[in-house]
């Protein structure tokens, strides 16, 4: 398996994001949802579990368009991103200035047992470059991080720059990283988010 470089640990990357978060709506999915839930709850959290795999960026786009005065941060996995690469084009076309899309790239489907994605299965294959894909789709602001200290230094900038912003975070798969479970009935959490946004 030809995994991308793994110099950061997912729980640490999530810890840094959690510490930098102020009043953003944060949508998490898969491994990031599991790790985010360990750090408590916030009215503007949306744990996208259960999910339609691949659709978190689209959900975040809708939120960003409907809530233009709020920042929306979507935490996506690389397997999820591969499932809906077209959403990069959709987002770039809409160009929401308040949307930040983070891709946690570990090269595997972590929650199902760390099987390689199509992007990393072949030893002779170069890992897919999500930053290049994003630029090609029309994202003007793209970051890549494989060093925790750099992520820590720049996370506030990533969260505050005019969007759409995309950042690729190269992380190691979490051993035994399991499936995130909905922390409450999903429909009640959807209602709660709508209310927290002042729309319920």
């Amino acid at each position, binding site marked *: 398996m030809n995994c991308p470089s793994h110099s950061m640990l997912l729980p640490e990357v999530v810890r840094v994001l959690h510490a930098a978060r102020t009043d953003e709506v944060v949508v998490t999915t898969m491994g990031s949802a599991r790790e985010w839930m360990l750090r408590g709850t916030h009215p503007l959290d949306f744990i996208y579990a259960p999910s*339609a795999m691949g*659709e978190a960026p*689209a959900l975040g786009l809708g939120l960003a368009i*409907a809530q233009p005065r709020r920042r929306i941060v979507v935490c996506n996995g690389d397997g999820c991103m591969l499932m809906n690469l077209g959403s990069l084009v*959709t987002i770039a076309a809409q160009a929401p200035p308040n949307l930040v899309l983070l891709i946690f790239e570990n090269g595997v489907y972590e929650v199902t047992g760390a099987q390689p994605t199509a992007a990393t299965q072949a030893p002779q294959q170069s890992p897919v470059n999500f930053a290049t894909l994003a630029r090609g789709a029309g994202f003007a602001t793209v970051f890549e991080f494989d060093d925790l200290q750099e992520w820590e230094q720049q996370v506030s900038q990533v969260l505050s720059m005019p969007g759409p912003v995309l950042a690729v975070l190269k992380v190691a798969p979490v051993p035994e990283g399991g499936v995130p479970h909905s922390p409450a009935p999903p429909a009640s959490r959807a209602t709660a988010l709508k209310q927290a*946004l002042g729309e319920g």
Partner: protein
Amino acid sequence: MFSGDELVGELRKMQISHVVWLPDSTLGTWEQALSGGSPGDAPKSEGPHLIRVCREAEAWAVAAGLYLGGARPLIMIQCTGLFDSGDSLRNAVHDYGLPLFAIIGYRSYLLAAATDSAKTYTEPVLQAWNIDYRLIDTPDKLPLLHEHYQQTQQAGQAGVVLVAEGRM
């Protein structure tokens, strides 16, 4: 079936804020009315605003985000896109209970002899997903759109209006 201007008039009565769409050859004739001009023109200031997606499953998730954020979205796709939509529709409508609403082009419905599988499976798929739907197969039934939207929104349930099409 009806003109883009007639449709947009209905959508404004329904106070639809955004149309999330991927057109087919019938829905595509409404492009100019929905976008407020020719392709490439600046978006119109008056709604509904058009959001173009790359595949139909995406449309349900965009609409879900819009709805959670307080907008009044409507999805507009062909029935073949409904087939693509399955998991995203299931998640938004049945996991999160969002009363999303869609106009879906019913390919080949008006062709009595058509053996198009898209025609065969459209209604069974909607029934399988437990989506309350109505059929507009003549222009005079356009008011069904507003009526069904109001009914489903008041009930807090998802809804679909199928628009009969004759072309493949």
